[in-house]
């Protein structure tokens, strides 16, 4: 199977390349034609350092007729790559958020639908075995009905290494767009795809405001999502993780049910301690490699012809929450999803 990683704009591109490069039965090609020249973290230089085959243009990639593509361009530049991939019959794994507008997301879904190729949104956290156990416990009734969810997905500011994350045009926003969607996806799983009813958000850019890399977008955001079934999800989506912390951040979520309270940590440390060499806490990550589990699912859907999950519609439902959250920032009020601008045709 020939798989192409398209663009190294997103930091996850290197992760996917590392996972795909050494797999049996995968022929990996990569391309990053929009890379700034001379940037060692992008383009041919990165591909060579990772030992991945590289071509210079999109035309060359698509001429090789990949069976599948992984789209890791800037958020606003997903659409043209997804449409092109679909037109050449390639299945698509697209980095999150799926797009920056509902129109783009819808066009991507439609293009893949028409072409008969799968479109998967890159939400790895739902592939955690612990989350699967949570999902099972909810399904077998042992938790009772879900009443509310509160969770935090905090990370260090990605614009420190990739400035486009702080460009509202390319990223679609800041921390809110970047991080709300992961917990929104988990709730989407727990509620079996129930569309959110209403979103409230507050944000600021105090962190990194003094000479930091992200004055143009929010770096701290609190989002409250209400679903028609009555469930409320309270999310901290801030880029509040200090840059000199031993980890990038984390994601943890508490589910309050009628019969039990469940805490889920997607990235628990395996080992702690202190590292005298760095003078910092030691933090050895544990748990399953969620990116690997997600890629496995993507490749398996191609081999078996199954529909991928999370699919493009999941990506769109969670994007709608983000778009409504930005509208809420503008109005200072909760926003009903049906009223959010930028929806169908906008």
């Amino acid at each position, binding site marked *: 199977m020939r798989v192409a990683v398209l663009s190294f704009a997103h930091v996850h591109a290197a992760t996917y390349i590392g996972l795909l490069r050494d797999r049996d039965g995968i022929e990996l090609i990569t391309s990053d034609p929009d890379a700034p020249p001379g940037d060692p973290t992008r383009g041919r230089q990165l591909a060579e350092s990772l030992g991945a085959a590289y071509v210079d243009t999109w035309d060359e990639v698509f001429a090789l007729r990949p069976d599948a593509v992984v789209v890791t361009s800037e958020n606003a530049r997903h659409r043209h790559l997804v449409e092109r991939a679909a037109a050449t019959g390639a299945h698509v794994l697209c980095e999150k958020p799926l797009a920056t507008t509902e129109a783009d997301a819808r066009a991507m879904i439609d293009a893949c639908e028409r072409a008969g190729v799968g479109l998967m949104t890159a939400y790895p956290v739902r592939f955690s075995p612990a989350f699967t156990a949570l999902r099972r416990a909810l399904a077998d009734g042992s938790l009772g009905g879900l009443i509310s969810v509160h969770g935090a997905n905090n990370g260090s500011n990605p614009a420190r290494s990739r400035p486009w994350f702080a460009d509202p045009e390319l990223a679609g926003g800041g921390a809110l767009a970047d991080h709300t969607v992961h917990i929104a996806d988990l709730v989407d799983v727990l509620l079996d795809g129930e569309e959110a009813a*209403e979103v409230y958000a507050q944000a600021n850019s105090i*962190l990194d405001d003094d000479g930091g890399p992200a004055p143009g977008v929010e770096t701290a955001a609190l989002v*409250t999502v209400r679903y028609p079934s009555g469930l409320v999800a309270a999310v901290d989506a801030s880029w509040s993780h*200090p840059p000199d912390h031993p980890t990038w951040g984390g994601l943890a979520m508490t589910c309050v049910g009628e019969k039990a*309270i469940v805490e889920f940590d997607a990235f628990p440390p395996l080992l702690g301690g202190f590292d005298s060499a760095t003078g910092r806490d030691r933090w050895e990550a544990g748990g399953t490699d969620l990116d690997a589990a997600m890629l496995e699912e993507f490749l398996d859907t191609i081999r078996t012809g199954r529909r991928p999950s999370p699919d493009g519609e999941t990506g769109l439902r969670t994007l709608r929450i983000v778009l409504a959250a930005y509208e809420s920032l503008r109005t200072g*009020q*909760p926003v009903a999803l049906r009223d959010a601008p930028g929806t169908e045709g906008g």
Partner: protein
Amino acid sequence: MAELEVALIGAGGIARTHLPAWVALGARVRLYAPDGRAPALAREFGATSVGSLGEAIAGATVVDVCTPTDTHREITLAAVAAGAHVLCEKPLALSAAEAGEMADAAEAAGVRLYPGHVVRFFPAYARLRDLVAGGGLGRVAVARFTRTGRYPTWSGWFADPLRSGGILTDQMIHDMDIARWLFGDVVRVHARHQGHLTNPAPEGAVATGTAVLTHAGGAITQVVGVWGPPATPFRTTFHVSGTGGTVQHDSQAHLDLRITGRATGGPADGIPAGDFGESPYLTQIREFAEAFAGGPEPRVSGRDGVAAVRIAEAAAQSARTGRTVELAPPAPLVPRPTTVPTGGIDQ
């Protein structure tokens, strides 16, 4: 400190935490509770019980109001009218108007009114305040607080929104007060509550609340409250991020003492006792007692109690209407008298 004559009104869960603190400070305490539970509680701690509110208040230097929230105003006003200082359990009242009336009455009478926002006296929160106020976190951007315990089914009035205000007011006001203490006045509130929100609450009821507070200085705070299933251990957490780093706390993460293997099965404790070391209720009451005796102002004022009710009332309104509630900056305070007039504790 001059000997305190304390009238403790109420004999429920909070009275049980306050009474030993007063006794430890050498106060003479007389209990009154309309539900008839005062004599047993008084006996347990070597206090006396009396048969009426008037009898309790008469001649008291301090009235400690530990009754359901909907009765705070009436008892506080009676105490103030009798010239007594007041420690009133949080929330001061169900509405900011009532709480303001209580604070006004105390100021007019020249007595002190302090709300029992005891979380300010829990060591982790006191240290957090020191950190934030000392600039240890730089400029704070975002904070979240959770407070989780069993649904307070041990006393029926908690589940009654008309008596307690429900989880948003009764429970989450603790962290609303902390957020305001740390990050300044709140100008916008959005809140939601869900689960079992009505009276009566059966054993096994669950309710949660979420609130987002926007502070005048730009910081944002998320407050989450959980009244959980009966075996839910009491637990509070916070996580605060600023330009100078983060600080976090989980009351269940690093215990001084953890006992396991014991057969359990009963419900969890509903009211936190604090960790080892001095009870935060004693720290609180000592600080208030010193102020009642003419000492320095404690870390929480009656006006702080009014402001906390204002936030909680806005949260309740937001949950009811589904809209955010904007709070104007508070009106300038009426200057306090610089000396405590006669009728105080030294008399």
